[in-house]
């Protein structure tokens, strides 16, 4: 029941947003709703801290450490995005780019999107999880194409087609898993409950599971943005409104990754961890490598950030693939870090877009003078996202890389070395592209000053997490991460 509450809050918020008579009030409803979800999630977190797992409706819902981390990320970024949207959309409304009715639908879709993501996490049944992941695509297509210009439609079309295709492929994986589970569990109904599957996964038919994992990896990998299935990602991220891009980059890809990890656990138990770990490592590394040229040579700052998401999701996959205690720990911490940092950067990008009305980096100079707060946060965020010490991403990347060396496996060490080279190149690309924009003499006649207080508040909210994790991981989070390792190693 307590889990259901988490799901109900966004649904109610969504409906309230769209059916409220006063148009102006919907943004407050949205902020309040997401704030309640956030607080509630922290409460759930304490429950997990005490009980390790929670379940509801006869194991229809199942929450463990892995879930709670993902939902925590979802709620944090969702709250920030709600806060940010309030400011961002106000400006858009003011500039008459959208109508008030449309804004209400925007909030509706956003909260439905949040709902589907939460559903992905808390649902126990892998089949329903598939439905929910597909649901995220459907909820967001209109958000990608929100402004309804040519390029938005194009992005939305690519988004829905590529993601749906990917997810349909994943369905085959689900079916195969179900089939093999049925052979063991016999009775249908429970046969797709993850909490049951994980206990009997070692009895599954290995060939089936191998094939199933391939489909899952390609399918959910498309949604997660693993290369070479990531092609929708830069388009969708760059065309969606910035708060939505933040949700995309920060949490949506994590939700898909969450799905992959669930299957990874089953597969490793069934066929040994080498198989899925190696696949994850390869896809992870390919993603990191693929993102390099696009980060090095890039004109559009939102695309730059999108490609950086490809890199980071690759990194997370690698961390999971390394499979050591600290690399899994690091990868999961990285999920959190990436979510807050990348969302922060997308918020900065949103402010830039509001101010300059362009996403071309060449046309923007001297942000630090025009938008002092955004510029400063962007300057910090760029260092944070590239894994520069002392910022949070460094910590998680460091853990993963260290574990890569610690494993002593030559294959892993080679991967780690390549990874380090890649990270360095990405750093170069990021710094070069972004800092040309942040500093320098402002061009044009763009007036000085920040756009909205809400956007600043949202950014400071996320910056708080960035900085806190840089120096200190709260015990709650640490405990959650430890538990995740236990879950992944199936201990």
């Amino acid at each position, binding site marked *: 029941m307590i889990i259901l509450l988490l799901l109900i809050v966004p649904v109610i918020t969504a409906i309230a947003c769209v059916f409220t008579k006063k148009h102006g009030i919907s943004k407050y409803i949205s902020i309040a709703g997401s704030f309640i979800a956030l607080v509630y999630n922290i409460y759930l977190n304490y429950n997990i801290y005490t009980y390790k797992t929670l379940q509801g409706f006869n194991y229809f819902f199942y929450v463990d450490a892995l879930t709670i981390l993902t939902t925590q990320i979802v709620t944090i970024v969702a709250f920030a995005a709600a806060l940010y949207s309030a400011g961002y959309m106000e400006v858009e409304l003011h500039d008459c780019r959208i109508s008030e009715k449309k804004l209400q639908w925007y909030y509706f879709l956003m909260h439905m999107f949040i709902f589907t993501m939460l559903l992905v996490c808390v649902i126990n049944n892998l089949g*329903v999880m598939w*439905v929910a992941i597909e649901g995220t695509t459907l909820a967001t297509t209109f958000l990608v194409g929100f402004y309804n210009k040519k*390029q938005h439609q*194009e992005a939305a079309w690519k988004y829905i087609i590529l993601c749906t295709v990917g997810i349909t492929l994943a*369905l*085959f994986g689900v079916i195969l898993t179900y089939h093999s589970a049925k052979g063991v569990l016999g009775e249908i109904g429970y*046969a797709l409950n993850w909490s049951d599957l994980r206990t009997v996964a070692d009895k599954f038919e290995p060939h*089936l599971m191998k094939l199933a994992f391939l489909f899952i990896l390609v399918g959910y990998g498309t949604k997660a943005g693993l290369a070479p299935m990531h092609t929708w990602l830069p388009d969708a991220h760059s065309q969606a409104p910035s708060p939505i891009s933040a949700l995309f980059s920060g949490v949506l890809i994590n939700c898909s990754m969450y799905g992959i990890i669930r299957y990874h656990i089953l597969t490793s138990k069934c066929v040994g961890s080498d198989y899925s770990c190696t696949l994850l490592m390869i896809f992870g590394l390919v993603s990191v490598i693929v993102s390099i040229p696009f980060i090095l040579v890039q004109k559009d700052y939102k695309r730059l950030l999108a490609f950086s998401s490809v890199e980071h999701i690759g990194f997370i996959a690698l961390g999971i693939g390394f499979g050591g205690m600290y690399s899994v720990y690091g990868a999961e911490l990285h999920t959190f870090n990436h979510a807050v940092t990348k969302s922060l950067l997308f918020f900065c990008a949103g402010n830039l877009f509001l101010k300059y009305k362009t996403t071309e980096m060449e046309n923007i100079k001297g942000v630090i003078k025009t938008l002092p707060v955004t510029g400063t946060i962007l300057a910090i965020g760029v260092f944070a996202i590239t894994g520069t010490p002392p910022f949070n991403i460094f910590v998680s990347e460091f853990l993963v890389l260290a574990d890569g060396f610690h494993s002593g496996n030559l294959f892993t060490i080679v991967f780690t070395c390549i990874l380090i080279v890649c990270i360095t190149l990405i750093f170069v690309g990021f710094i070069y592209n972004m800092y040309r924009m942040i500093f320098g003499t402002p061009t044009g006649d763009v007036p000085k000053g920040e756009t909205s207080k809400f956007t600043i508040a949202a950014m400071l909210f996320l910056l708080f997490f960035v900085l806190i994790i840089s120096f200190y991981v709260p015990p709650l989070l640490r405990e959650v991460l430890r538990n995740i390792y236990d879950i992944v190693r199936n201990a």
Partner: protein
Amino acid sequence: MTQQIIVNSRTIDILAVLMLITTIILIGTSRLRTCIWAYACRSFMLTLASGLIAYFSGIHHIYITTGISLALKVIVIPGFLFYIVKKINIKKEVESYINYTLSLILACGIILIAYYSTQNIIQFENTFMRHCLPIALSITLLGFFVMISRKQAITHILGLITMEDGMFFAALSTSYGMPLIVELGLFFDILVSVIIMGIYVYRIKESFDTIDTDSLRELRE
């Protein structure tokens, strides 16, 4: 009893092959309406198979899925597609990047791959799976292939629902369908996604004056 099982599975096998043939028609034809008809036809056969399996196995909830499938896949979706075709007034034939002969050869290749990849699994099976699983996979992959090779946006939808048909059939033939709640969710998803795609096809037609996805190349590096 054994005799019965063999007869049952042969029946399903035949239906499977028929479905495969309709999918190949989808690749082989150049008329959009024919494509939609082929889809409706295949969906019907799928529904038939579903009903037969429900009958053979005696699992009741499959009847429910059969019913929904009949309504959705055979009536609503093809109807919706016809409606779109009419609404946006597509006259052009379906263009393809690959010519028909080559398409068919590649389709053969894809079917081979499907058999090849499932061969490890099906050799232990004794239910309908022997042929059904590879065929289901073939249908999925062929649907995918359609999406790749055809230029028009509407064929993307067709390819996608073909893939979903394949999946549906796979689930049905291997495990007598998924749990009911999953099936319901699945149908809901298909319906919503087809509607959303339909809306976008319409919007694209409005903005780009064509539904040729070749023109959607603004966002690139």
